[in-house]
């Protein structure tokens, strides 16, 4: 693999950038692997990378139904934070947030992590109490967080209206070391780094069955032939239930549409991330200048990668209440993804009821931020068969024992 550096940029400039090599190979699937990862988003590619890097598993394939990062990895609103309420979530999300800080160096690929701060607004007394509780819970466990009065909110984010009569900002939490990253770069960076370690990344390869004998997986059936493997790790986001169904088990997951949109690009006008759970809207500005706006998930189950317009209209209305100056912006495009929501709004990193199958799903509306931590902890589980310390609470068993990790209040928007 050619290393990316200022020097390589200059060298290639001399030959008019005609000789850059592909960032990763495009191999045909081998008949057998030591481990197969189903799902070529950030979490799946990251899992492959950490398996190869830390667990000495080199004969790995990542099977992707479409193209790398074309699912939720390329459809989210790129927000990174770790200000969750429960201890288990704080551990995993904070692990991920710390990894974001050095991910570009580790992968030799600029993921453009930008710790520009994340504001979570509250608009009434009850929400304020909940938010203060969350800030205290964060502070007690070493996750950075502070509480801002309306005046301090205005100082931190001058373009925002804090005295809107309909939605007055009565306070906010601020995590200063949270922010955004470039979503595509995360998929591409992990793909390139995993490929360098010998991982086969196979695109346009749909898994349509499993070879299961004596309660253990022996391989997968795909549109590009049967592939044998003693371990199969499922990282399919919205399609978790579909794959589980093929493998003969059930998941406590419901797949729903989640939409987002971007405005036309404008000059820098918003240097932080603003989220409001009560009014179902959040906004940040990308490096290209587009305002990236997201909202709540649609209420119904759906795999269509599109949602209902009134949900999107609600998010836009909310953002325009807080930023009246955005009303005149034209919207460039909107899109939807299929998010896998668990009953407690927390992820599932677990061995499946079928031997040799592991599942990483349930990230719902907020999986992007967790990408490095999720992949790191999941690779540990797949390699050793034992959960990583930071991921051990996120089992399927919690739904029977009742030890849920309730994060509905810490999700960016209610769902």
């Amino acid at each position, binding site marked *: 693999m050619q290393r990316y550096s200022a020097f390589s940029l200059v060298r290639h400039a001399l030959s008019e950038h005609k000789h850059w090599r592909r960032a990763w190979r495009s191999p045909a699937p081998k008949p057998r692997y030591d481990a197969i990862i189903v799902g070529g988003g950030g979490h799946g590619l990251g899992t492959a990378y950490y398996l190869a890097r830390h667990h000495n598993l080199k004969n790995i394939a990542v099977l992707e139904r479409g193209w790398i990062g074309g699912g939720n990895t390329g459809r989210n609103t790129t927000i990174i934070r770790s200000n969750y309420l429960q201890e288990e979530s704080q551990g995993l999300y904070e692990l991920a947030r710390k990894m974001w800080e050095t991910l570009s160096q580790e992968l030799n690929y600029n993921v453009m992590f930008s710790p520009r701060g994340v504001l979570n607004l509250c608009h009434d007394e009850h929400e304020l109490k909940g938010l203060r509780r969350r800030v205290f819970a964060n502070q007690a466990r070493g996750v950075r967080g502070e509480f801002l009065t309306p005046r301090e909110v205005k100082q931190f984010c001058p373009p925002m209206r804090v005295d809107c009569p309909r939605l007055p900002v009565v306070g906010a939490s601020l995590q200063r070391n949270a922010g955004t990253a470039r979503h595509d770069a995360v998929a591409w960076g992990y793909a390139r780094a995993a490929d360098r370690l010998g991982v086969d990344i196979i695109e346009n390869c749909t898994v349509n069955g499993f070879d299961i004998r004596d309660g253990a997986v022996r391989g997968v059936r795909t549109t590009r032939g049967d592939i044998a493997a003693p371990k199969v790790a499922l990282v399919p986001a919205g399609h978790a*239930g579909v794959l589980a169904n093929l493998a003969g088990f059930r998941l406590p*997951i419901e797949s729903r549409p989640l939409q987002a949109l971007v405005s036309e690009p404008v000059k820098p006008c918003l240097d932080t991330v603003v989220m409001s759970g009560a009014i179902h809207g959040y906004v940040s500005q990308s490096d290209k200048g587009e305002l990236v706006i997201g909202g709540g998930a649609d209420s119904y189950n759906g*795999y*269509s990668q599109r949602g209902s317009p*009134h949900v999107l209209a609600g998010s836009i209305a909310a953002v325009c209440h807080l930023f009246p100056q955005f009303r005149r912006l034209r919207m460039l495009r909107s899109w939807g993804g299929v998010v896998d929501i668990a009953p407690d709004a927390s992820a599932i990193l677990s061995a499946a009821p079928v031997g040799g199958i592991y599942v990483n799903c349930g990230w719902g509306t907020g999986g992007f931020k967790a990408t490095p931590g999720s992949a790191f902890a999941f690779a540990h589980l797949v390699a050793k068969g034992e959960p990583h310390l930071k991921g051990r609470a996120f089992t399927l068993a919690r739904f*029977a024992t009742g030890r849920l990790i309730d994060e509905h209040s810490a999700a960016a928007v209610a769902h």
Partner: protein
Amino acid sequence: MLMIPCPWCGERAEVEFAYGGEGGLSRPVVPGDLSDGEWADYVYFRKNPKGTHCELWHHLHGCGRYFEVVRDTVDNKVHGSAESGSDIRGVSDVKKV
């Protein structure tokens, strides 16, 4: 926006309704007889199909009734609806609205 056919009020816009999740579930008659796993299955585990889905809708801003709808989760085509409790999972039997 989805158009939901209420069996009593006819086809109305989705904003009048609240989604009620998977239809056709019934609470176990004697919950105490269930193992923790079986109880979890009833409370948390859902079919979540990619394709035909039987689901509950609540005509919140209308007649206020719950009813079951058969909808395709990929193309959002609604195949029909019926009073809650009737068996409409076999799509051919669905009362077309």
